C-alpha cells in the first residue's frame, strides 16, 4: 500500500497532539491458566456472555463460561502467545462480522478477516454473529421455489426460499457437490428481479479442498454473488464453532434488506465436534456421545434464523442447506437425528447409489421436503407426481424382478420406465439445468417417449432433445418459463416436437 511521507507525518502529529489527553480506560482481568485453546481468567466482573476480549499479542477470545470465581474464555488465535498472568481486556462488544454486498466474491475468516489477499473489506455495516431468530408474526409461508438445477431435487424434493433442507449422507457421496451446484445455479437468478446471494461456510475442511471449491465457483462465475466463510481443519475449535453463526449473520443481511440469501453449512457435524471439544475443555458435563447437553440448541438456534419474511418486513428470505456427514449410513446417531428434526426435510445420499453410478446419489425414498409442492412451479408439480409414482413402483418391482425370470408385460413396462427415469435423473457436476429444460425431459420420460430408447442411449437422447427444443421449438421453453405451467396447447406442441425429434434420433 502506498503511503506518502506527509501522511505518515500527519498521522504521527495527530497522535502526538492527543498524547496527553488520552487515557486508555479498560476493564481488565488476569489469565489464571491457559491450555487447549481455553483461558481461565480472574476479574472481568462485568463481562457479557459471548463478549469479545483482548489478550496481548493481538489474540482475541470469546467469554463463554461466566462463573462465580472466574471466566472461561475460548481463544480465536494462537494460545501459545498468551501466558499465565497476562492482562485480558474487555472490548464491550459481542463478536461481530462485517456484512453487505462488499463481501461478495470474498473469502473470509469467521471473524470477518479477509483470507483471499484481495485487500481490506470496506463494509459499511456489521452484525453480531449471535442473533435471535425471528418470531412467528415476522414470518411468511415458504412459497417461492429455490432451484438447485438438479433434476432429481427440483422435481421430487423441491426447496423453497426460506426453507432449511438438510443434505445428509456418508463421506464421498456428493453432499458438497449438491450444495456447490445449487450455488452455481443461482447465477440465472441474477438476470431476473429476485437474485439469490450465496454464503458458503466451510467448517473443518482441508484448506486445499476449500481452495478447489473457490476455484470452481470462480470458474463458473458464481463467486460474483457468493461469500465464502472458512474455518479450516487446522483452525482453533472456537473458530469452527462460530463459523456458521458468522455466515448466518452475513446471510441475514440480505434477508433483512428484502433480498434473498442462500447459505450452505458444510458441515455441521464438524461444528458439533468442535463444540464438543470446546465444551469438554471448558469442563462442561458431557452427555450422549460426549456432546454437551446443549448441542441441540447449538443447531436449532442457528437453523431457526433461516426464514421467509413477511411482506411488512420486505419479503426477504434466507434458505439454509446444512450438511451432515453420517457414519456407515447411520441416520439415527445423535447429531443427524437432531438436525433432521430441526430442518424442513432432507436429501439423503446413498453410498450404494453413488457407487452404482447414480449421481447425484439421491435416495428418493428416504429424501423428503416438508414444504412440498408449494415451492414448485405448476408445470413441475404436474409431472413430478407421476415421476415419484413411477420411481416408487420401479423400486418395489426391481427387487422382485431380480428373482423372477418371466415377467408379465405390465411389470416389464414399469421396470423399463423406471430404469429410464433413473437414467434421466443422473446429472454431472457443475452442469445445473434450467427449470424449463428439466420440465421438458421429465415430461418426455413420464409420457413414455423414452420407453423404447435403449438405456445406454438415454443420455444422448436427452441432450439431443433439449437441443432440438432450443432450435426448433424455443417458444415451448419460453412458455414454460413465462407461465410456469403446461396447458393443453403447450402439451400438444411438446408432444409433437418430441415425436418429431424421435423420428430423427
Amino acid at each position, binding site marked *: 500500500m502506498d*503511503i506518502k511521507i506527509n*501522511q505518515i507525518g500527519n*498521522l504521527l502529529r495527530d*497522535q502526538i497532539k492527543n498524547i496527553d489527553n488520552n*487515557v*486508555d480506560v*479498560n*476493564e*481488565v482481568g488476569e489469565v489464571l491458566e491457559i491450555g487447549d485453546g481455553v483461558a481461565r481468567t480472574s*476479574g472481568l466482573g462485568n463481562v457479557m456472555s459471548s463478549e469479545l476480549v483482548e489478550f496481548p499479542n493481538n489474540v482475541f477470545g470469546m467469554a463463554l463460561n461466566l462463573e462465580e470465581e472466574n471466566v472461561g474464555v475460548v481463544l480465536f488465535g494462537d494460545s501459545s502467545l498468551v501466558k499465565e498472568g497476562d492482562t485480558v481486556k474487555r472490548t464491550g462488544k459481542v463478536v461481530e462480522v462485517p456484512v453487505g454486498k462488499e463481501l461478495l466474491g470474498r473469502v473470509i475468516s469467521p471473524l470477518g478477516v479477509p483470507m483471499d489477499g484481495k485487500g481490506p473489506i470496506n463494509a459499511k455495516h456489521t452484525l453480531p454473529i449471535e442473533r435471535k431468530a425471528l418470531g412467528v408474526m415476522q414470518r411468511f409461508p415458504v412459497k417461492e421455489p429455490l432451484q438447485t438445477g438438479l433434476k432429481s431435487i427440483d422435481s421430487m424434493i423441491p426447496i423453497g426460499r426460506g426453507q432449511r433442507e438438510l443434505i445428509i449422507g456418508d463421506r464421498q457421496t456428493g453432499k458438497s457437490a449438491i450444495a456447490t451446484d445449487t450455488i452455481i445455479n443461482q447465477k440465472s437468478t441474477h438476470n431476473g428481479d429476485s437474485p439469490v446471494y450465496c454464503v458458503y461456510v466451510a467448517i473443518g475442511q482441508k484448506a486445499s479442498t476449500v481452495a478447489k471449491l473457490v476455484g470452481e465457483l470462480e470458474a463458473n462465475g458464481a463467486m460474483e454473488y457468493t461469500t465464502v466463510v472458512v474455518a479450516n481443519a487446522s483452525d482453533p475449535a472456537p473458530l469452527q464453532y462460530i463459523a456458521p453463526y458468522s455466515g448466518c449473520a452475513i446471510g441475514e443481511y440480505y434477508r433483512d434488506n428484502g433480498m434473498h440469501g442462500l447459505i450452505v453449512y458444510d458441515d455441521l457435524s464438524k461444528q458439533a465436534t468442535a463444540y464438543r471439544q470446546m465444551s469438554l475443555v471448558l469442563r462442561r458435563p458431557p452427555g450422549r456421545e460426549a456432546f454437551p447437553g446443549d448441542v441441540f440448541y447449538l443447531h436449532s438456534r442457528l437453523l431457526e434464523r433461516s426464514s421467509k419474511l413477511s411482506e411488512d418486513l420486505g419479503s426477504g428470505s434466507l434458505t439454509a442447506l446444512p450438511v451432515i456427514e453420517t457414519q456407515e449410513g447411520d441416520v439415527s446417531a445423535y447429531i443427524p437425528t437432531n438436525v433432521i428434526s430441526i430442518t424442513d426435510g432432507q436429501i439423503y445420499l446413498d453410498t450404494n447409489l453413488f457407487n452404482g453410478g447414480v449421481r447425484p446419489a439421491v435416495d428418493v425414498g428416504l429424501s423428503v421436503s416438508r414444504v412440498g409442492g408449494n415451492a414448485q412451479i405448476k408445470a413441475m408439480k404436474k409431472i413430478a407426481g407421476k415421476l415419484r409414482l413411477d420411481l416408487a413402483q420401479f423400486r418395489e418391482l426391481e427387487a422382485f424382478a431380480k428373482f423372477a425370470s418371466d415377467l408379465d408385460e405390465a411389470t416389464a413396462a414399469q421396470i423399463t420406465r423406471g430404469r429410464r427415469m433413473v437414467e434421466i435423473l443422473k446429472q454431472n457436476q457443475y452442469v445445473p439445468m434450467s427449470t424449463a429444460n428439466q420440465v421438458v425431459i421429465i415430461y418426455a420420460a413420464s409420457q413414455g417417449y423414452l420407453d423404447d430408447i435403449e438405456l445406454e442411449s438415454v443420455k444422448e437422447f436427452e441432450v439431443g432433445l433439449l437441443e432440438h427444443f432450443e432450435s426448433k421449438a424455443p417458444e415451448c421453453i419460453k412458455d414454460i418459463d413465462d407461465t410456469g405451467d403446461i396447458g393443453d396447447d403447450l402439451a400438444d406442441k411438446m408432444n409433437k416436437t418430441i415425436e418429431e425429434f424421435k423420428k430423427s434420433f
Partner: protein
Amino acid sequence: MKQNHKKIKIYSESLCSSADTFENFQSIKRTLQDLIVLSKKDLTINTFLKSKLIDSSQKMDIFKKAFNEAFNKNLLDILLVMIEHDDINLLVEVNKSFVTLVKKKLNIAYVEVTSPFTMDNSDQDNLAKELSDITNKQIDVNFSVNKELIGGLKIKIDDMLFDSSLKTKLENAKSKLIEV
C-alpha cells in the same frame, strides 16, 4: 468440592468479622500471605502442616507456642480450628475469599500503580490520597516500577485499568498506522 466451598465460606466469614478496621485487615492479610508463602516455599513447614504422623493436637500446640504473641488472637484461633479439622490446605482459597469479603465490607479498593521510575514517598502519598478521594473508598495501594512504560502511569483500580503510559500510546499509534 461442595463441602470445601462451605468450609471456605465459614472460615473466610469468621476472618472477615475480626477484620473491623482497614489496619486490622491489612495486618491479617499480610500474615495470611506470609503464612501461605512460607508453607509453599519452606519444606519443613510444608511437611509439618501436611503430615499425618503428627496429630492435630500436637500441631495446634506447636502453632500456639510459635504464634501466640505474633498473631492477632482471632486469626490464631481460626487457624487453630482449621488445623484441628485438617483444613489448613484450604488457606489459599480462604485468603482469597476473605479479601473479597472485607473489600466489600470496608469499601476497600485494591490499587496497583505502575510507573516508569520510582516515585518518592510524598508523590506516593499524594497519589494515594487523590485516588482515595476519587474512588471514595479506602485504598490498598501497591507501587511498582516498569521502565518499559517510558512515561505516564498505569493505574489499576480493582478491575479497571487506566493507562496513560507512553508505551501504550505508541502501540496504539502503531496499530493505527498499520490500518492506514
